[in-house]
């Protein structure tokens, strides 16, 4: 791995960014070939945080393995759990009570909101503005508190079990969510004032890290990265799960394909998530929060695939079952992995500063890529 680091014949500078770098958000290691300040090649070196979750899952039961997946994309851990639980439920053909479905979707959207808020602050930080980070964390903290009340954890919620959710909502949940929404609505204009309308920010992101729609499809870019290129790829709209087909929300699509488009998509998604929460918070149906399931879950022989929309894109869960109480083989198709593979394509010909903007708007979470 190390022999290639250095310089090559054309006088290009080969430089390491990461694994210990302020803007790689974790232990991503990029080897960049530079000519002056212009990027000629970006090569990701992965594996610094690879825990082989897929192998671990092979020895865990269908109830246990869900919790391991919280550690993949830790910013949307609840949605990871959701995807896994859906896959098990699909195999077992478990009917989920409506209340559980609503709770799951509510939590999904809160998680997405929290994840996007963190991304928003971190992107501004990548571009050299520190202050937005504190503004977004002010609101994110409230979501974390909501999560803590109900799930008992702030980041790795582990709230979903096959058949529903682990326990009922906290009695204060509805009131607190409404309070949060009210506050968030009054604060969201600050985001536009601080970052969106800033001319330097616009110049730093417009036309940077461009990827066309065709390339986005070919590279398997999903989530805001794909939608920024005009690719309709919201799993919640295309292949609705739970109660998403009964909800009113828009799939935010931008067509310019650059970092600015991805920024706009994510900011738009925050608003859409807020709308979804608003629709659901007063309409949580009464009833069971968990379906009756057997103590030991056994999936029939065969393979099962489900997709959910995490904050970063399409998460696929592929379970191959031999009929036992543990999966025979499990594969997570993580959104970050495919998005990262397009990084080289997107950042060639740009400057080092552009690379940071591109990486920031891809919203990479390294444990999601390394798994």
């Amino acid at each position, binding site marked *: 791995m190390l022999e290639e680091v250095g310089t090559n014949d054309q006088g290009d500078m080969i430089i*390491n960014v*990461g*694994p210990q*770098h302020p803007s790689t958000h974790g232990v991503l290691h990029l080897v960049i070939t530079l000519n002056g300040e212009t990027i000629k090649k970006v090569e990701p070196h992965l594996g610094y945080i690879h825990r082989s979750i897929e192998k671990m899952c092979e020895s865990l039961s269908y109830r246990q393995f869900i919790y391991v997946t919280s550690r993949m994309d830790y910013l949307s851990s609840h949605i990871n759990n959701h995807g896994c639980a859906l896959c098990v439920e699909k195999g077992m053909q478990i009917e989920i009570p409506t209340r559980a479905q609503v709770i799951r979707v509510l939590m999904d959207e809160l998680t997405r909101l929290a994840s996007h808020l963190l991304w928003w602050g971190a992107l501004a930080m990548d571009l050299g503005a520190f202050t937005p980070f504190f503004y977004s964390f002010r609101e994110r903290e409230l979501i974390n508190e909501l999560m803590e009340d109900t799930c008992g954890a702030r980041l790795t919620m582990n709230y979903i079990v096959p058949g529903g959710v682990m326990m009922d909502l906290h009695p204060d949940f509805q009131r607190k969510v409404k309070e949060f929404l009210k506050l968030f609505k009054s604060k969201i204009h600050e985001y536009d004032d601080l970052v969106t309308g800033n001319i330097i920010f616009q110049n730093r992101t417009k036309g940077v890290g461009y990827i066309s729609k065709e390339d986005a499809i070919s590279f398997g870019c999903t989530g805001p990265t794909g939608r920024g290129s005009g690719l309709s790829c919201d799993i919640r709209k295309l292949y609705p799960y739970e109660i998403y087909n009964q909800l009113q929300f828009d799939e935010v699509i931008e067509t310019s394909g650059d970092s600015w488009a991805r920024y706009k998509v994510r900011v738009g998604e925050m608003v859409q998530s807020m709308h979804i929460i608003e629709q659901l918070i007063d309409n949580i149906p009464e009833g069971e929060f968990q379906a009756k399931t057997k103590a030991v879950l056994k999936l029939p022989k065969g393979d099962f695939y489900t997709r959910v929309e995490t904050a970063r894109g399409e998460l696929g869960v592929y379970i191959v079952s031999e009929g036992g109480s543990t999966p025979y083989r499990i594969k997570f198709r993580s959104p970050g992995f495919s998005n990262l593979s397009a990084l080289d394509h997107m950042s060639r010909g740009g400057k080092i500063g552009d690379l940071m903007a591109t990486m920031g708007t891809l919203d990479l979470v390294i444990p999601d890529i390394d798994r």
Partner: protein
Amino acid sequence: MGVTSLLILTLAAIVFSAGGILVSKIFVKGTENIQKGQAYECGVPTVGQTWLQLNVGYYLFALIFLIFDVELVFLYPWATVVKEIGWMAFIDILIFFFILFLGFLYAHKKGALKWM
């Protein structure tokens, strides 16, 4: 105080900097470790030459700066007497700036101001 003040200030700066470094030398007990001497590159050892020829983009700006800065120095004595000379000085500077502007346009057209 005159020119000596510059000497005094230089000395003060040296005393201040050297004093700080010396004090820290006295207090600090250094430890030996091969890793400490390595260049920092995000925790990965650097291989290859650092002192290599860089893209010409950086130097072009330095050259254009040199031209403009020399012109700028000529402006200082002019600026002190503008009010006394009056309109003649204004016409002078118009010609001066016109030539400078032509040079600027030339550099711009040649792409010297486009960052490589």
